[in-house]
């Protein structure tokens, strides 16, 4: 599925992935987590790879394997070095906390594999949720 990189398409992407996660046999709680990870990833591409809405497309593919569910998001935006992204600090006081910077952390918390590949053809994010 190819979607214009716009927030309004988030719900379609989530529905698409939820449907496949359901087919794969995941329980509701896990499905919720997976679509949350996908939502965060899709939003990140709009915000950071493209730097705004409507500046490109995002392709989403899902694959049910023996191992679990693989979700891939492809874009033609900016690259980045995921290893340089710091983990969000779990701070004590409300005043200091910000849910900014939790997207990547959530994706890694939820999915069993989160890997980025940057090639001439574009950027590819692969996320795998394994059957337990």
């Amino acid at each position, binding site marked *: 599925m190819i979607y214009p990189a716009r*927030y*309004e398409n*988030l*719900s379609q992407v*989530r529905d698409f992935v939820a449907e496949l996660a359901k087919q794969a046999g995941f329980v*509701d*709680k896990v499905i*919720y*987590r997976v*679509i*949350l990870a996908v*939502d*965060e990833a899709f*939003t990140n591409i*709009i915000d950071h790879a493209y730097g705004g809405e409507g500046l490109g497309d995002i392709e989403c593919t899902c694959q049910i394997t023996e191992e679990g569910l693989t979700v891939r998001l492809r874009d033609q935006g900016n690259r980045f070095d995921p290893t340089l992204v710091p983990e*969000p600090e*779990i701070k004590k006081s*409300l*005043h200091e*906390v*910000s*849910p*900014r910077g*939790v*997207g990547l*952390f*959530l994706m890694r*918390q*939820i999915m069993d594999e989160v890997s980025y590949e940057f090639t001439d053809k574009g950027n590819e994010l692969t996320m795998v949720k394994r059957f337990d």
Partner: protein
Amino acid sequence: MDVVTTDYKRCSVIRTSGRIDSFNSPYLEQAFQQKAEEGRYRLVFDLSDVDFISSRGWWVLIETQKLCKRYNRGELVLVGISDEIRDSLRLVGLQKYFKMYDSVTDAVGSF
């Protein structure tokens, strides 16, 4: 996104339904800001009919909480939060910034 607010004597209840994500969270933000402009900082957010919140939505809640708690003038409390949403808040340790109630009555009664 429909956001319905009800003003009571000592607090306001904000209610919406469906999904809160990068697309529509600005509307929710607006509703909270509207209450703040009216000087209403004791807020109950009723999520009974909300089935998804992304981190963008949490951000609105966290910022609203900061605004409400400033000068000890109020607080944002949550009601009817689903197991899934609660679970995802816990994943990033944000659940501790909100009191949660089972019913709107309990939440309104806490103010």
